[in-house]
């Protein structure tokens, strides 16, 4: 017993010294060479189940083949579209105890970590591996902060997609082949669905309402007007925004009344799948769900860009970082190398239902939807998603989500517009 105790104490002491070394933050990680790396690589994600877990497993398969000397340590935390994981991660980073790499939405959400000086600059890594030419320029621009790149994108999702039930539309007298091209036409279709006794538009709790709000803003203001909301070029108090919020109010009136009690996006998408509702605005991870449930595209369900946003790709991307003071920086770089590689991106995205960020990845056997999304991404105008941390930092998104959630109750257009303007004024630089 005593022996074991002293052993424990020894391990604890060793852990402390290691942590002290790691915590210094002066590890010359730029010189770390991934091919010599050994030991464990702890990777923090919120991909704990479903298609996300399957995608991660596929990626780990490639990683183990690329770097047989390294062991992958899965540090995934489940729950709440990553909100649970983010709080755990924040605590670990604050305590100076970072994982070797962690998942973060590309874009403004990274800003918090950069501001807190928690990320290593990966520009050198991009150069060494010749990645700048392999990723789309639009994406690289959105990842670059003050000329530096801090993360490696693993996949790209689209947030302005409407998923529809073919049967419900046919019965309501709406042609599923010819979706509406603007909001007015879409609302007219929803009136037909309503008359047929089904829910026109399915939505779930707070963040899915924010995503619907974002889609309506994008459709109503156009891509430039929408982008302007986040950089101050569009006035939140303008009449155009009032019109957009009124359109959102109209859209909400078509939704299921129990929206706040649906626990996540999946139950709302399920309503469309089951034929209880006609439409659901959701990111294209819904595709993986339809596929998993063995539904056929064009027969059971159909999809189209949210009316009025055709030719615009409302983007969000997951990316991986190299935190300052990572215990095994060479291992981290090995992991980032696998993620950025064409093989890694193919294996991961095929299963997760998203599209590869690396344009050299092979996509011949991807699903029909994925192929169409890849095509759209290469030619559409790219805008950043609000609900998924690409457009604004977390604190801004949080405040705006509260205002949108409040609007779900009081439907007060004026009050939502005033508070959104006040929030933008508070956070805009």
């Amino acid at each position: 017993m005593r022996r074991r105790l002293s052993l424990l104490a020894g391990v604890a002491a060793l852990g402390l010294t290691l942590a002290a070394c790691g915590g210094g933050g002066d590890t010359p990680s730029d010189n770390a060479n991934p091919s010599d790396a050994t030991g464990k690589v702890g990777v923090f994600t919120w991909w704990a189940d479903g298609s996300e877990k399957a995608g991660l497993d596929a990626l780990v398969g490639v990683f183990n083949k690329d770097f047989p000397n390294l062991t992958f340590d899965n540090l995934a935390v489940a729950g709440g579209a990553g909100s649970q994981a983010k709080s755990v991660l924040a605590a670990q980073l604050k305590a100076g105890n970072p994982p070797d790499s962690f998942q973060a939405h590309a874009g403004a959400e990274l800003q918090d970590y950069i501001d807190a000086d928690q990320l290593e600059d990966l520009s050198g890594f991009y150069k060494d591996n010749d990645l700048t030419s392999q990723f789309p320029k639009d994406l690289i621009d959105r990842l670059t902060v003050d000329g530096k790149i801090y993360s490696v994108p693993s996949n790209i999702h689209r947030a302005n997609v409407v998923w529809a039930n073919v049967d419900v539309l046919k019965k309501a007298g709406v042609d599923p082949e010819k979706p509406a091209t603007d909001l007015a036409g879409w609302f007219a279709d929803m009136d037909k669905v309503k008359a047929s006794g089904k829910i026109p538009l399915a939505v779930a709790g707070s963040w899915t309402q924010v995503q619907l709000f974002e889609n309506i803003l994008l459709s109503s203001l156009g891509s430039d007007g929408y982008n302007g909301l986040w950089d101050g070029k569009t006035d939140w108090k303008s009449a155009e925004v009032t019109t957009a919020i009124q359109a959102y109010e109209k859209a909400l009136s078509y939704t299921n009344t129990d929206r706040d009690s649906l626990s996540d996006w999946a139950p709302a998408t399920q309503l469309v799948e089951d034929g209880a509702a006609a439409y659901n605005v959701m990111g294209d991870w819904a595709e993986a769900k339809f596929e998993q449930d063995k539904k056929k595209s064009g027969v059971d369900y159909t999809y189209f860009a949210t009316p009025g946003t055709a030719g615009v790709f409302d983007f969000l991307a997951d990316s991986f970082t190299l935190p300052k003071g990572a215990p095994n920086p060479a291992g981290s770089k090995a992991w980032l190398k696998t993620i950025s590689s064409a093989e890694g991106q193919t294996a991961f995205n095929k299963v997760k239902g998203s599209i590869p960020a690396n344009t050299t990845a092979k996509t011949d056997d991807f699903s029909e939807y994925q192929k169409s999304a890849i095509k759209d991404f290469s030619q559409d105008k790219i805008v950043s998603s609000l609900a998924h941390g690409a457009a604004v930092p977390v604190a801004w998104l949080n405040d705006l989500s509260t205002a949108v959630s409040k609007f779900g109750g009081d439907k007060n257009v004026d009050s939502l517009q005033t508070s959104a303007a006040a929030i933008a004024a508070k956070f805009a630089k």
Partner: protein
Amino acid sequence: MLKRAKIWGPGVLLLAPTMILVGVFVYWLIIENFRVSLTNQHTAKPSNKYVGFENYTNLLADPNFQHSLWNLLILTIVFLGGTLIFGFLWAWILEQPAKGEGFFRSVYLFPMSVSFIASGVVWRWLLSSLQTSQPGGERTTGLNRLLDSVGLGAFQNDWWSNPTWGIAAIAVPAVWQLSGYVMALFLAGFRGIPDELREAARIDGCTEWKLYRHVIFPQLSPVMLSAVIIIGHMSLKLFDLIRAIVPDANTYDVQVPATMMWVKYIGSDYADAAAIGTILLVLVAFVVIPYLWYTSRAEKR
């Protein structure tokens, strides 16, 4: 000197671990929390500028925070009123000489042994806001379905999704869970009143109502006070039940300071989160400290 140390030494040694742990993990953290609440640490970027009580004044002027305080007031009134009424009623019924007291006592007390998180998941389903008359009403579940099937369909409502009174629906499961506990308190109070007092009152010609009004109620008031304090401070801190019933923490209709603190913390607004924490601590102190003072004075006497 040494002799003295021998007397109090072992006592101090025995208490020291507890005192150190409580000192660090409770009191030091309270101080640290208070310190953060006086800084401008509103983003993940470390910043330690002292801003005095600015965060507090901003929060108290913020309509969203005022709304959460108002919600807290409604929640506390319904939660307290419900548990006191049901707790007293059940205790009064069980106090009557009847069979099966032990059985019913257990039945009423059992909900307390379930954690808020576990019961919250079930109540999320029970308090589903969908009504049979609405589009998609065939999916109606929980209490609304039950009301409809027993012919009370007109009483269906949107429970916690109601923008004004939604928070009162959150108190329903809380009342269900803690009424049994208040019943146990009252039952102990009833048992503490000697039979002789009742008999004496009856001999003096008291009616049943007068007996309760002048003999029993006055003797139950300390029990009542304990119940108010215990339920009151639980209500102020209520977080897990709301979190379990309402899927998204950032749901305006049922926002209370405790959930708002969580939302702020997730958004890396550490200063505001700490300020809300301090405000909650002060609110709870308003409830608990007079009680501690009262009991210590009663013990001295």
